[in-house]
């Protein structure tokens, strides 16, 4: 470790925040760009599965709530791209990384939303898992990232409650609604568990990231916490978690549960999830078909700037 690196690590160990203008190791910067970028992309791609039901939301109120939620997600994407930009990369560059497939987004968004209950399940399980991941990141060492997470976490917990509320309505509703709710839980349970990433034993970058306080808890810790929190919620809903081996372990003080199928996880990462191609195509099309808009607005801004400059000069 160089003296600079030593000093850097000491600051982190002392709980200081690293700010954009501070010196930082190249690895720290790169890891953060990857992590924040991936998180930002997830918010953006994450609009799509829920957006799929905005035009079919069953009541005006539900439609409004869902619109507001998806709007929040776009907002989160924006905060996070801004946080990433403080590390010296542009939003356009990050977008290109996404669209070329070089940067990933959370694999959960490669699963389809097939019934209205999926909107509930996403709020309850997916936002629930996201919060579990994100709450500790409010204490992450990189200042802009930590501050973005604080704003995001506040909104996410609101989303989770709304999702749970949908599930509750469905679980207490007609037999068909109940069936939708159970079906949604069946399909989203394991993908939600995957959101914490593979077991720490498999995870290469974990140790360094934890030392840098970019990562605060291990994947397995968070996954366990999520299961422990979610099981009683499912019981309250009267829904069955699709894991016959799930049971309370008195000794550990935790639920024992079945690991997700990690082969499926790696398949989805490789692009073979149910919706990878559709999601990427939707984002690519939005980007390409929006090119003339971005160019038009930029050209106009440039004209205005030039006109103002000319007017200022004439006034002198």
């Amino acid at each position, binding site marked *: 470790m160089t003296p600079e690196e030593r000093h850097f690590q000491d600051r982190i160990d002392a709980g200081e925040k690293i700010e954009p203008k501070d010196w930082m190791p190249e690895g720290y910067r790169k890891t953060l760009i990857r992590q924040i970028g991936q998180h930002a992309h997830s918010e*953006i791609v994450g*609009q*799509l599965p829920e*957006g799929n039901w*905005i*035009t*079919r*939301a*069953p*009541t*005006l*109120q*539900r*439609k*409004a709530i869902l*619109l*507001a939620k*998806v*709007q929040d997600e*776009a*907002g989160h*994407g*924006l905060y996070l*791209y801004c946080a990433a930009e403080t590390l010296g990369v542009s939003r356009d560059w990050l977008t290109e990384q996404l669209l070329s497939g070089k940067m990933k987004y959370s694999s959960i968004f490669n699963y389809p939303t097939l019934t*209205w209950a999926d909107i509930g399940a996403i709020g309850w399980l997916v936002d629930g898992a996201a919060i579990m991941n994100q709450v500790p990141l409010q204490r992450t060492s990189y200042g802009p990232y930590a501050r973005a997470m604080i704003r995001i976490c506040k909104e996410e917990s609101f989303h989770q409650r709304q999702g749970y509320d*949908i599930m509750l*309505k*469905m679980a207490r*509703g*007609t037999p*068909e*609604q109940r069936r939708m709710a159970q079906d949604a839980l069946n399909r989203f349970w394991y993908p939600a568990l995957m959101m914490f990433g593979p077991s720490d034993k498999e995870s290469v970058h974990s140790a360094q990231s934890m030392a840098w306080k970019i990562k605060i808890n291990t994947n397995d810790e968070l996954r366990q916490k999520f299961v422990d929190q979610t099981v009683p919620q499912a019981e309250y809903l009267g829904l069955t978690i699709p894991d016959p081996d799930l049971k309370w372990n008195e000794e550990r003080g935790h639920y024992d549960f079945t690991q997700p199928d990690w082969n499926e996880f790696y398949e989805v990462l490789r692009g073979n999830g149910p919706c990878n191609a559709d999601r990427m195509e*939707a984002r690519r*099309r*939005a*980007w390409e*078909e*929006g*090119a*003339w*808009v*971005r*160019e*038009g*607005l*930029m*050209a*106009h*801004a440039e*004209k205005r700037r030039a006109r103002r400059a000319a007017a200022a000069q004439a006034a002198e």
Partner: protein
Amino acid sequence: MTRDEALFEFALRMGDTALILGHRISEWCGHAPVIEEDIALANIALDLIGQTQMWLGLAGEVEGRGRSADDLAYLRDAWDFRNLLIAERPNRDFGHTYMRQFLHDAYAVEMLGELTGSAEERVAAIAAKALKEAQYHLEKSSEIVIGLGDGTEESHARMQDALERLWPYTGEMFADDAVDETLAAESIAPKPSSLRPAWDARVNAVLGEATLTRPESGFAHLGGKTGRHTEHLGHLLAEMQWLQRAYPGATW
């Protein structure tokens, strides 16, 4: 036509226009050219859905047959919808969407502005809340129309095309009928035709700044306000009402 019959029709016209336009805008969700626009469009849609709830709530109340705003939104077929035709026109590209929004917003601001002085308190109250939103929408949509109209050659051409395509759907906003006459006589709502000069002035100013040419034709497609729609509305409703139709009686 009684005062309440006219008020019911009028509340449907306002509410359905907000609902259908809001639905169209919400179709953009996740597909806008930049994130800021995803946010802005969601925001407009959200406001319009909120306005829908108020107007259709009022319609149900005035009708007095126990229909809620949701019943009216989800359980009527196309011919009972009273939205302006411009609201149901397809999104096409981003510029077209914002041109439609601008032409509508310029009307909504005038209409809602007048309605804040309505002799019917419930109308005045809804208008007061909606007007602020409409003013913000108009600011935003004017900005985009100007930015793209006075942008590149391509963006200019697309905006001029959008303007020409949508122009025949603007006249309906100012066409008076018996509903309007009744409500004007009761000082509940202005005659739509009375809003035209202010709309013209606003539209001319923005189109001028946008370097766009106002179409000369005075031809107007009518029918939305009396339930004769375009072919597009049926498809939109099939999607919008799907869950309520497929699972009647469920609560969500």
